C-alpha cells in the first residue's frame, strides 16, 4: 500500500515537473534564434580557425549582451568541431540543422564541406553562408537558391589581384607570366577557370603549381618557381601552408612584393613570426584590413571586460577575428531582415532566414550604426545575385603590420558573369535543378 502511494506520488510529481519543463522550454524556444557554428579549432588549419571561430562567437555574444538579441530574440549558438574534414562537417550539419526552430544558416568554414552540404541544404531548406569562399558559381541565385557566397568569391578575388597587377604593369598583362601556387584541394583549384579565361583573353601565361596538403613541404614548388621566374605568384594557401610558402619564397629569393595571397592566407598570424622576412607580401581582403571600429570597442566593453570573451583579448582586432565577427554580423543582419518580413521579435525558421540573406541591404549608414562603418563597404543582395557587392582591396605586410596599398576594387563583370552563368548552368543540368525566375 505504502509503495503504491509512493509510486503514485512519484508519477504525479514527474508528470508535473516534465509539464513544467516543457512549458518553460517552449517559452524559451519562442524567443530564441539558433545559430549553428561549424568551426575548426583543431587540425592543420587551426591557426586560422581559432580566431575566426572566436570572432563568430564573440559577435553573437555581443548582440545578446548589448542589444538583448535581435529585436528581443536572444541568439543561442552551439559550436561543432569539423577539423576541416568533410565527413565530420556533414555530421555537424546533420546534428545542428534542426536545433531550436531550425538553424539560421550555416557558415561551413570550408570549401569541401560546402560542396558536401550544398545538395543537402537544398533538400532541407537551410541557407549556406560562404563569405569569400565556397562555390564561385553559386553567385547565381536562380540556380543556387540556398547558397550565399557573400562579399566575394575566389573568382572575384583572382580578378582583383590581376587588376592590381595590371595597374602596376602599366595597364596590360600581355606577355606576363603568372604562377598560381595553390593548396591542392577544391579550395585551391577554384580560381583556375577564371585565370585561364583571362589569360586567353589578355595574352598572359598562367602556370599552375599544386601543393599537396597540408603544404609544409614546398621545396620543389619554389625551386620550379625559381627556374621559371614568373612575374607574379598568386598564392592560394591556408593554415600551415602559408608561413611555409613565405619562408620558401624567402629562401629561394623570390620577391615577396610579387606575391599576392588570397584572404585566408593574409592573416596576422601567417606573417607575424616571419616579421621582416615577409615584408612586401601582398594579400587581398574583403574588408578593410585590420581597421578598428566601434564594434571592437563594444566588444571589449560588453563581452571581454566581463570576462566572457571566447578567446584571448589580444586576438580582438586581428584580421581573422574581425572577419569572424563580420561573418556573424551578416548572419545576424539576415535574421534581422527576415524579421522585417516575417514579424519582429519572432524566432524564424531556416527557410525564413534564407529570405533575409537574399534581401540584405547594408547601406553605409546601417554599417556605421552597427559599428562596421570602417570595416567594410555597403553590400546588397538580390534574388539573382547572391554575392552582393564584391568590394576588395590589397594590403601589404610592412614587416610589423598590414598596410593598405590600394583603393577598393570591384571584379570585372565581363569575365566573371559569363563564367558564373556557364558553371551554374552546368550544375543545374547535372543536378536537374530548374532555375527560378527572378522578378
Amino acid at each position: 500500500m505504502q509503495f503504491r502511494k509512493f509510486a503514485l506520488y512519484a508519477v504525479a510529481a514527474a508528470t508535473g515537473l516534465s509539464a513544467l519543463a516543457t512549458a518553460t522550454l517552449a517559452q524559451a524556444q519562442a524567443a530564441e534564434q539558433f545559430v549553428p557554428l561549424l568551426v575548426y579549432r583543431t587540425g592543420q588549419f587551426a591557426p586560422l580557425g581559432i580566431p575566426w571561430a572566436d570572432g563568430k562567437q564573440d559577435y553573437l555574444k555581443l548582440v545578446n549582451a548589448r542589444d538583448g538579441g535581435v529585436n528581443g530574440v536572444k541568439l543561442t549558438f552551439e559550436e561543432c568541431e569539423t577539423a576541416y574534414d568533410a565527413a565530420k562537417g556533414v555530421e555537424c550539419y546533420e546534428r545542428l540543422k534542426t536545433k531550436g526552430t531550425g538553424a539560421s544558416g550555416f557558415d561551413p568554414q570550408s570549401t569541401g564541406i560546402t560542396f558536401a552540404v550544398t545538395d543537402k541544404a537544398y533538400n532541407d531548406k537551410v541557407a549556406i553562408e560562404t563569405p569569400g569562399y565556397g562555390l564561385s558559381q553559386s553567385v547565381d541565385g536562380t540556380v543556387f537558391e540556398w547558397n550565399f557566397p557573400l562579399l566575394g568569391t575566389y573568382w572575384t578575388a583572382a580578378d582583383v589581384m590581376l587588376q592590381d597587377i595590371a595597374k602596376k604593369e602599366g595597364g596590360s598583362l600581355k606577355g606576363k607570366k603568372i604562377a598560381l601556387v595553390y593548396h591542392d584541394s577544391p579550395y585551391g583549384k577554384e580560381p583556375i577557370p577564371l585565370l585561364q579565361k583571362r589569360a586567353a583573353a589578355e595574352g598572359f601565361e598562367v602556370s599552375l603549381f599544386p601543393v599537396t596538403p597540408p603544404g609544409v613541404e614546398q621545396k620543389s614548388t619554389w625551386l620550379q618557381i625559381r627556374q621559371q621566374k614568373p612575374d607574379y605568384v598568386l598564392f592560394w594557401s591556408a593554415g600551415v601552408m602559408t608561413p611555409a610558402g613565405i619562408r620558401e619564397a624567402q629562401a629561394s629569393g623570390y620577391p615577396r612584393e610579387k606575391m599576392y595571397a588570397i584572404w585566408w592566407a593574409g592573416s596576422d598570424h601567417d606573417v607575424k613570426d616571419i616579421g621582416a622576412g615577409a615584408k612586401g607580401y601582398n594579400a587581398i581582403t574583403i574588408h578593410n584590413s585590420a581597421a578598428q571600429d566601434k564594434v571592437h570597442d563594444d566588444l571589449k566593453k560588453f563581452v571581454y571586460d566581463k570576462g566572457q570573451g571566447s578567446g584571448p583579448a589580444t586576438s580582438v582586432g586581428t584580421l581573422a577575428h574581425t572577419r569572424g565577427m563580420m561573418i556573424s554580423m551578416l548572419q545576424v543582419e539576415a535574421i534581422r531582415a527576415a524579421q522585417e518580413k516575417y514579424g519582429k521579435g519572432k524566432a524564424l525558421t531556416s527557410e525564413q532566414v534564407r529570405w533575409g540573406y537574399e534581401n540584405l541591404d547594408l547601406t553605409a549608414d546601417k554599417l556605421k550604426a552597427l559599428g562596421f562603418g570602417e570595416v567594410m563597404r555597403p553590400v546588397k543582395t538580390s534574388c539573382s545575385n547572391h554575392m552582393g557587392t564584391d568590394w576588395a582591396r590589397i594590403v601589404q605586410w610592412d614587416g610589423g603590420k598590414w598596410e593598405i596599398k590600394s583603393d577598393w576594387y570591384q571584379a570585372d563583370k565581363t569575365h566573371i558573369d559569363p563564367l558564373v552563368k556557364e558553371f551554374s548552368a552546368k550544375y543545374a543540368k547535372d543536378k536537374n535543378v530548374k532555375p527560378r525566375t527572378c522578378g
Partner: protein
Amino acid sequence: MFYRENGQFKSSYSADLALFPVAQDRWAMWGLLAVCFVVVPFVASDYVFRAVITPFLILSLAAIGLNILVGYCGQISLGTGAFMAVGAYAAYNLQVRIEGMPLLLSLLGGGLCATAAGVLFGIPSLRIRGLYLAVATLAAQFFVDWFTNRMKWVTNDSSSGSVSVANLQIGGYAFETPVQKYLLCLSIVALFALLAKNLVRGAIGREWMAMRDMDVAAAVIGIRPVYAKLTAFAVSSFIVGLAGALWGFVHLGAWEPAAFGIDKSFQLLFMVIIGGLGSIAGSFFGAAFIVLLPLFLNYVPHWLGLSISTATASHLEHMIFGALIVFFLIVEPHGLARLWSTARQKLRLWPFPH
C-alpha cells in the same frame, strides 16, 4: 543456461554446416535483422540515419573487405582508401558518362574497377609480404591520390576537382530520404556480409587462411599462392570499392579526393585490428568502435552539462579514444570479436564452468 543447447541435434550435413548452428544464435540474428529492417526505420531520427548509422554501415562493409585481405589472407594493406576511391570515382564516371545507367550497376561497376586495381596492386604480394607489402600497397594510396587529383577526366572536368552525384534511383524508385538511403545501405551490407561469411567458410576461405598461417606449408599441400593471394585481393577490393561508391554516392553526395585519403586507410586498418582480425562480426564491432565512439565521447560533455570549449572537447575525445584503443588491445589483443566470443562461450557454460 542462456544457451541451452541440449536437445538440438544435428542430423544432416547441412545442419552441421549451418551458418549459425546454435538455434539461439539463429534467432538472435533473425531478430537483429528484423529490428534493423523494421523497427529502426520508425524510431531513429534523420540525424541518426544520416550521421550515425549510414556511415557506420558503409564503413563496416569496407572493414569486411579489408578483413578478408588482412584478417583472413594475412596480406597487410594500407591502400584501402585508394580502393574505396577507385570504386567511388569509377561508379561516378559510369553514372555520368553512360546515359541511363542504372545506379546499382554503377555501384557494382565501381566495385569491379576496384577489383582490377586491387589485383594489380596485389601482384607484389606474390613476392613480398608483411611490412614490405604494407609499403607496396601504400603506393596504391599515393598513386590514386595523385591520379584523382590530376587527371581531369576522372572528375568529369570539374574545375575544383570535386564531384557530386544526384538522383539516386533504382528501377524508378528514388532513394531520397535518409530512411530510404539507410535501407539501401543496410540491404547491400547485409547481403555482402552474408556472402563474405560464406566465402570465408568455403574452400577458398580455407586457402586464404592457410596462406595466412604459413604460406610455404600451404604451397606444399597444393594451394597455389598466386591464386589464393590474388583472389583475396580481388574479393577484398571489390567489397571495399563497393563501400567506397556507397560512401561517395549515399553518404557524402559530393566528395573530393581528400575524402579517401590515407587517413581512411589507417582508420579502416584500425577497425579491423580492434574489431578482430579474421572475423566478419569483428568488422562491425571495429566500425562501431571507430565511428560511434568518438561521436559518443563528443556528446558526453553535453549530457553532463559541462561547458567546455570545442577545442578542449575535441582534444579530450582524441585522448580518451586513444587510451581506449590501447586498453582494449591490452585486454584482448585479438579484438572485440574475441571478447564477444569469449562472452558467448561463458554464457553457454554458465553456471557450470569447467
